[in-house]
């Protein structure tokens, strides 16, 4: 559970993201605390993934800065960045498993890159990671031989390969059946409570949000930033912002500019 008294593990300060003339995010401020499950939500195209990619250092801010464990990603030295990479695991929307490698090689890759463990121990750790995501016995499979849900779980095993202290998820349950999605949600919660891993999750799956989020921030395309923040259940019950109500009650927009239909 989030402990606001602790120092934040991620600080986003005045972040502005632009692509050409399009401003996606403007002056976004955000803090993520150790051990919390933070969900970034919002309609498609509001900049959820852009915000996450700034947090993992894939995008550089046009203005503002992102500090992860006190290190400014844009100004970090190679050594600092290398150290931070060990602390961060990312589950991409498509899984992003390397198609030319078996699952065992996919998961073993970060371990062999960042440690000097002998191959037999790496194999054992890989087996354990696959067991965590219920893919025991699939180490010699190629990603192309797996279903969508299995790919997601294998990608999660790779993201957790180094037991990172922060895990990022981009649409973890998109394209999955409800049972597999619920299983993935359960696993995310289990890892968070057991290992104390900080989770930052980008999603707009309501069921997942209500199930796993301890805190949510809601982005809006027109506001180009955060329009609501708090516990998802409280937001759903008490928010008076029509955009938040529309989101939690799955109401279609009237004009596409944030206005909603009555009822």
């Amino acid at each position: 559970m989030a402990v606001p008294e602790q120092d934040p593990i991620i600080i986003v300060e005045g972040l502005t993201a632009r692509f050409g003339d399009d401003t996606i995010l403007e002056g976004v401020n955000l803090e993520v605390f150790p051990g919390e499950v933070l969900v970034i939500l919002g309609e498609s195209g509001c900049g959820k993934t852009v915000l996450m990619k700034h947090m993992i250092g894939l995008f550089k801010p046009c203005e503002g800065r992102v500090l992860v464990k006190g290190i400014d990603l844009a100004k970090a030295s190679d050594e600092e960045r290398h150290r931070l990479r060990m602390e961060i695991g990312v589950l991409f929307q498509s899984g992003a498993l390397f198609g030319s490698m078996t699952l065992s090689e996919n998961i073993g890759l970060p371990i062999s890159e960042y440690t000097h463990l002998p191959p037999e121990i790496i194999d054992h750790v890989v087996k354990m990671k696959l067991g965590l995501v219920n893919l025991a016995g699939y180490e010699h499979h190629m990603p192309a031989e797996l279903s969508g849900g299995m790919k997601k779980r294998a990608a999660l095993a790779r993201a957790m390969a180094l037991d990172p202290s922060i895990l990022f998820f981009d649409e973890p349950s998109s394209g999955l059946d409800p049972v597999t999605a619920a299983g993935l949600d359960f696993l995310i919660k289990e890892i968070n409570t057991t290992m104390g891993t900080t989770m930052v999750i980008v999603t707009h799956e309501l069921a997942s949000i209500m199930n796993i989020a301890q805190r949510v921030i809601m982005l809006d395309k027109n506001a180009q930033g955060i329009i609501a923040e708090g516990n998802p259940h409280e937001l759903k019950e008490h928010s008076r912002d029509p955009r938040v109500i529309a989101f939690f009650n799955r109401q279609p927009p009237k004009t596409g500019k944030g206005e909603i239909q009555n009822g």
Partner: protein
Amino acid sequence: MAEPGERKNDLVQVRGERGGTIKLFLSGRIALDSISLYTEEIRKRLSDLKPKELIVDLTNIEYLDSSGALILLELEGRAKSQAIAFSFDNMPDEVHRIMGLINREALTTPSVKTEKKREYLLEEIGEASFAFYKDMRRILIFVGEILDALFHAVRNPRLVRWDDVLFYVKRAGVDGLPILSLLSLLMGLIIAFMSSLQLKQFGANIYVASLVGIAIIRELGPMMTAIIVAGRSGSAFAAEIGTMRVNEEVDALVTMGFDPTQFLAVPKVLAAMIVVPILTLYADVFGIVGGLLVGITGLDLTIHTYIQQTVNSVTLFDFASSLIKSVVFAALISGISCQRGLQVRGGAEAVGAAATSAVVSSIFLIIVADSAFAIMLYYVQWS
């Protein structure tokens, strides 16, 4: 927090007597980056002490991740397999929870799919032959499909996606002109220069023009053009269709009732058949210009003499055969490249393999076809 390697001797403390009950006190950070230190140290201590009972005390563990938990479970498993009584002592709740996260059965679950075994040479030859047979069969089927699609296109020209044809004419033709011109010019220059070194000795400078003209128009022009088109456009065709296959765009076409061969391959094949003969003519001209440059600068020939000699040496038959060859080469390159793209299964690696295979297969087919043309044209010309 202890760095790996630091306080190495403090990480594992032992209490107890050899051959009796041994208590191991583990401390520090048992994580992925330090587990080899612990395993090494524990293994060494246990092989020295040979205990009957082993108790592992976890009071002083500062940090444990899932890999650390794995090592503890392995230690338990190893002790039990050697009939050593085993127990954990003072296990903190956090450690207990992390160990509970690990699915012990998964560690011993055999792989669903076994690793490919090393094969014998004969087996490998057999497999390669079978793969070759299957490949040839697929190519033949595709040849049938593409001929059917082309026949259909000729009967119903309005159904051909002419915008796509024009697009590929530009991509394969106009965009490839600079590199083709440069390489053909250099090819003509090299042939003229190398042949002049020999022919000058006999005072036969003028025959450099004949040699360059015939070599370029009959063989090198069509061949060079085809190889450049295979490298530039064949690989692009295969990669484009292969990526569409991976992204399920080809499946989408099928479900919408389109024939992928008709929709994707025909415009490319038609574009190549239109543009490669034109490119071949360009290559012929630039090759001859290359020879001309050597002729007028190094062989004391005039522009008029050189061109006259070239015109006298080259027949209309040479030109016509060159153009027919280039049309056939174009069909082979574009056809095999589209076929390689359409047979992609899997991901990015398969797309790369298809692009490579498209180029290699194209060049192979170009040379085979050229050999066939050499023999065929010889008999046609002298019959």
